[in-house]
């Protein structure tokens, strides 16, 4: 097992007491597997990813990489943030080479490596551009190249395409699938979009909201490469949502007798509703 998440919880201290962001999370990810974490915003996906990256510490529990406790951040697990987090004071190639520079790789060598990965993400012509000159999609490509240049075993992607237009996003889905099948990376990919999760994931881990915990794990057996508008993906998305909705409804029905109708609605609202609505817009 490449990644083991064992009993990870996270509490944040806030003004009105403690906020439980994650209830105990257990998750195993195999080497080379593409796992999507799906859930409404605020359910703790980023929190979990940051803990796996070693950028935050869990309140309890631990993360193991190749069996070793992973308490500190390291270049074996590189993060790709939603807004790319590129350095505006460096041009594109220096951004891509940044990790190699930190690792003490000589300049000529690291530039060569950086160029190779810029070719991979189709940005060879932009190596001396600065970040403010790039579109959102190009920035995510640079961030991907910057991560890949370090040749990490694990890529941690936190809603990397969340802010992109649909066309750019579809294009990046294709490129990411190609790169993933070429490089055999283990990928953890956070999204709140059901179809995106189905297109990319071998498995889709669905979170429920506040406090975040794993609700259900789906295995996606569709042949690759997958297209977001293909019937197979759309159908599966609808099916998954039905399962999840029924699930929410039955569990809610058990307590329904004791609870006023608007209370129930508020709870659903609080829970999976947010996802359903977003996803519903996408699907329908």
């Amino acid at each position, binding site marked *: 097992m490449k990644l083991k998440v064992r009993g990870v919880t996270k509490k944040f201290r806030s003004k009105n007491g403690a906020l439980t962001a994650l209830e105990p999370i257990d998750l195993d990810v195999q080497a080379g597997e593409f796992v999507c974490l799906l859930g409404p915003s605020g359910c703790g996906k980023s929190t979990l990813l*940051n803990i796996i*990256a*070693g*950028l935050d510490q869990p309140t309890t529990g631990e993360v193991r990489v190749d069996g070793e406790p992973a308490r500190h*951040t*390291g*270049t074996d*697990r*590189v*993060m790709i*943030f939603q*807004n790319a*987090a590129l*350095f*505006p*004071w460096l041009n594109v190639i220096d951004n891509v080479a*940044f*990790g190699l*520079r*930190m*690792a003490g790789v000589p300049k000529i060598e690291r530039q060569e490596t950086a160029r190779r990965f810029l070719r991979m993400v189709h940005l060879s012509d932009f190596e001396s551009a*600065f*970040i*403010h000159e790039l579109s959102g999609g190009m920035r995510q490509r640079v961030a991907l190249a*910057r991560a890949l240049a*370090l040749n990490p075993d694990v890529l941690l992607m936190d809603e990397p395409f969340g802010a992109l237009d649909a066309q750019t996003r579809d294009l990046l889905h294709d490129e990411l699938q190609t790169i993933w099948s070429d490089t055999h990376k283990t990928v953890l990919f956070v999204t709140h979009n059901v179809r995106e999760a189905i297109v990319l994931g071998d498995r889709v881990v669905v979170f429920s909201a506040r406090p975040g915990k794993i609700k259900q794990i789906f295995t996606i057996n569709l042949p690759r490469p997958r297209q977001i508008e293909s019937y197979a993906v759309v159908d599966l998305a609808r099916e998954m949502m039905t399962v999840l909705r029924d699930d929410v409804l039955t569990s809610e029905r058990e307590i329904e007798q004791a609870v006023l109708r608007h209370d129930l609605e508020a709870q659903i609202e609080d829970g999976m509703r947010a996802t359903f609505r977003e996803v519903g817009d996408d699907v329908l």
Partner: protein
Amino acid sequence: MMFFRRWVANRWTRQIVFFAALLAAWQAFAWIGPLPDYVFPSPLGVAQSLARGFQNGTFILGIVASMQRILIGFGISAVAGMELGLAIGRIRLLDETVGSLVLGLQALPSICWLPLALLWFGLSEAAILFVVVMGALLSITLATEAGVKNTPPLYLRAARNLGARGWRLYALVILPAALPAIITGMKLGWSFAWRSLMAGELLYVSLGLGQLLNAGRELNDMSQVIAVMLVIIAIGLAVDRLVFAPVESRVRERWGLQG
């Protein structure tokens, strides 16, 4: 009519007309007014003084001397201020101690350091440099400190995740991330330093623009006094507009801080 309207609407036109009118009124008053030339010189007289000053080299020498002092003083302030600000911004203990000292000293106009500097260094270049440094150092320190404290945490997380540690994190991430704030601080520091230098040169010193002002006064040569004032204004403005403003706007654009 259309042409005239557009002409008036232009900001430059309005400014040129204003300053031309000001000059004309000045010249007219100097001609018909009751005041003698050494009290109220005409703009033409000032222009002649300016030309004379540059032709006989005294202005050039003064400018070179003053610029030399400010470049050295400002350079020291920039380097020391950035390091001090970085340390204060990152180390809690320094923030609570040295940080509040810097904040307190900032309230003191830097020319007030001159008597102390004269006692320490005597009548020397070092004394005036000290005053210049005290003028720029504190604002560069405070700006760097603010910039460092406001570094977007995302940059730090990304950098740490990519393997940045120790001094490299400071030199290659934290400082550049704070650069927009640092440049604003330098701009402010420069104007403080320039004012302190002029005050210092005026009160004492061998050669420089401030001393030329004094010389004009001693010779009862008001047109030289005004000519030197114009040179001081011109240099102050030029450095601000031609050096700091373009750098500041380029950095802000690149850092994504403006539309």
